């Protein structure tokens, strides 16, 4: 069954004018479906934050259109944002206000009734374990607590779409796990669609249904995390060689395999399909290894591959 498109972006461009005009976002088009979690990845300066700011109307695009729920965003801004939430590690809530005061203000901005505000604020703060801190000023909270309050703010009005800009950056692993659990729960319970940016590739693989890679303002890849990882076939075989290091090096050289050696550990990069052939080949020449690990291509491998390519392209252009 096809799901409804809740966000559609067409030919979106942002050019910063000045002495050196700079195209931050370059004619991107994509759509997001109901209940979908879409990862927006890319190296620093790729245009992720600029895109999110345009999706919030806090930055005016140079050209292109944004359509939420089938309606043009710029002509229906206020009514659209009633259903769109935003949370970012890099944006703060007023630090001299308490948690309760901040959430109360945001509840009012989303037109929640006093009873709804009270109920939902208690529900989210309890879920995130900060209900006891509710009368503390934001400036007295840890980074993790601030992030959790920010997420509570974002989901207070039960949005249909959430734009989450690195919601787990600088969080301890247990808190980051809690945030991921919350995000997935919101999707399961309320069918919320989410645009999710992160520098943690494992997290993106865990949370996102689909991933878009931005590079120099352009979308250079758009697929599921698994498919993207599979498109890079290079795996790394790590061998702790017990006996036959010389023979292993000779074998790698003979078969033109990229390799590095560090403290009797040899890393060999090769096509995933040739791993079995390598291992049997090494056995034939009598190499003994005490430990073996195979790093299969992941989203991170793909990210590194694209980032490397991007740097090469940039160098060639300059």
């Amino acid at each position, binding site marked *: 069954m096809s799901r409804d498109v809740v966000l559609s972006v067409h030919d979106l461009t942002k050019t910063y004018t000045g002495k050196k005009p700079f195209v931050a976002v370059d004619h991107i088009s994509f759509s997001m479906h109901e209940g979908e979690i879409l990862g927006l990845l890319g190296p620093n300066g790729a245009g992720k934050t600029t895109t999110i700011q345009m999706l919030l109307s*806090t930055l005016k695009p140079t050209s292109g259109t944004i359509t939420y729920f089938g309606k043009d965003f710029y002509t229906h801004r206020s009514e659209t944002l*009633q259903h769109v939430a935003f949370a970012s590690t890099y944006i*703060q809530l*007023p630090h*001299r*206000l308490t948690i309760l005061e901040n959430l109360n203000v*945001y509840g009012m*901005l989303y037109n929640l009734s006093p009873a709804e505000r009270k109920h939902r604020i208690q529900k989210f703060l309890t879920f995130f374990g900060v209900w006891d801190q509710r009368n503390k000023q934001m400036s007295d909270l840890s980074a993790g607590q601030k992030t959790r309050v920010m997420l509570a703010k974002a989901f207070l009005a039960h949005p249909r779409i959430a734009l989450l800009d690195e919601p787990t950056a600088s969080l301890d692993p247990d808190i980051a796990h809690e945030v991921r659990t919350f995000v997935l729960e919101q999707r399961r319970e309320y069918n919320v669609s989410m645009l999710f940016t992160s520098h943690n590739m494992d997290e993106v693989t865990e949370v996102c249904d689909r991933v878009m890679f931005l590079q120099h303002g352009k979308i250079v890849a758009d697929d599921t995390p698994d498919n993207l990882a599979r498109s890079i076939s290079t795996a790394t075989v790590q061998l702790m060689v017990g006996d036959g290091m010389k023979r292993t090096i000779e074998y790698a050289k003979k078969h033109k395999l990229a390799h590095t050696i560090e403290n009797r550990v040899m890393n060999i990069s090769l096509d995933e399909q040739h791993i079995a052939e390598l291992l049997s080949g090494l056995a034939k020449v009598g190499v003994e290894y005490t430990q073996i690990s195979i790093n299969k291509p992941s989203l991170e491998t793909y990210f590194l591959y694209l980032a490397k390519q991007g740097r090469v392209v940039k160098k060639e252009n300059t």
Partner: protein
Amino acid sequence: MNIGRIWAVTIRHLYLFIHSLDRLTDMVYWPIMDIILWGFTTQYVQQRNVSLPHVALAILTALVFWQVVWRANYEISVNLLEEMWNANLVNMFSTPLKPLEWVSAVMLIGLLKMLITLGVGVGAVWFLYSLNIFTIGWLFLPCIALLMASGWFMGFLGSSFIIIGGTRVQTIAWTMGFLFAPFSAVFYPVSVLPVWAQMISRVLPTTYVFESMRTVLATGAIP
């Protein structure tokens, strides 16, 4: 326009007011200090020079009136800066809040705080010097309205520069009002200004308020 959202932004700044001693100081402490310093100075001048009738009342009324302009201007630009200092501007405008609603809210906060400052100022003048600023009669109301509107204008002008230049030019929030003060003839008549300054003075609405106030106090006639 949504009244609920306007009230939300108003409440946000009123919460800050509760937690922030410096905002309370701005609103009450400095006006009272000005009134004390200027009040005793003008009383001294008046005692020495009988040819200056109502000088104390004129200067103190001017002082209280200038606080109205200052507060209206200050609230607009400092409330914008407050959001910038807190990195909260994107948060605010990622909600259904409309720019016009935000503007209405900061004007409302300015009005509420101005009423408190005005009350404190009028009370302090009466308590310390037994002078009544309401001597100018019903003219008081349009004067206050005009001064508020002028202060808002200065605040929005300053805020536009802050939006363009960011916090690097935040000093505009404190200096913009005073840029207009010498030309508004707050404490002296326009006639003492050089001719070129008088030309600027005549295009400022604030000038007419301060000139009218002095005329009423000196002659009792409404200009």
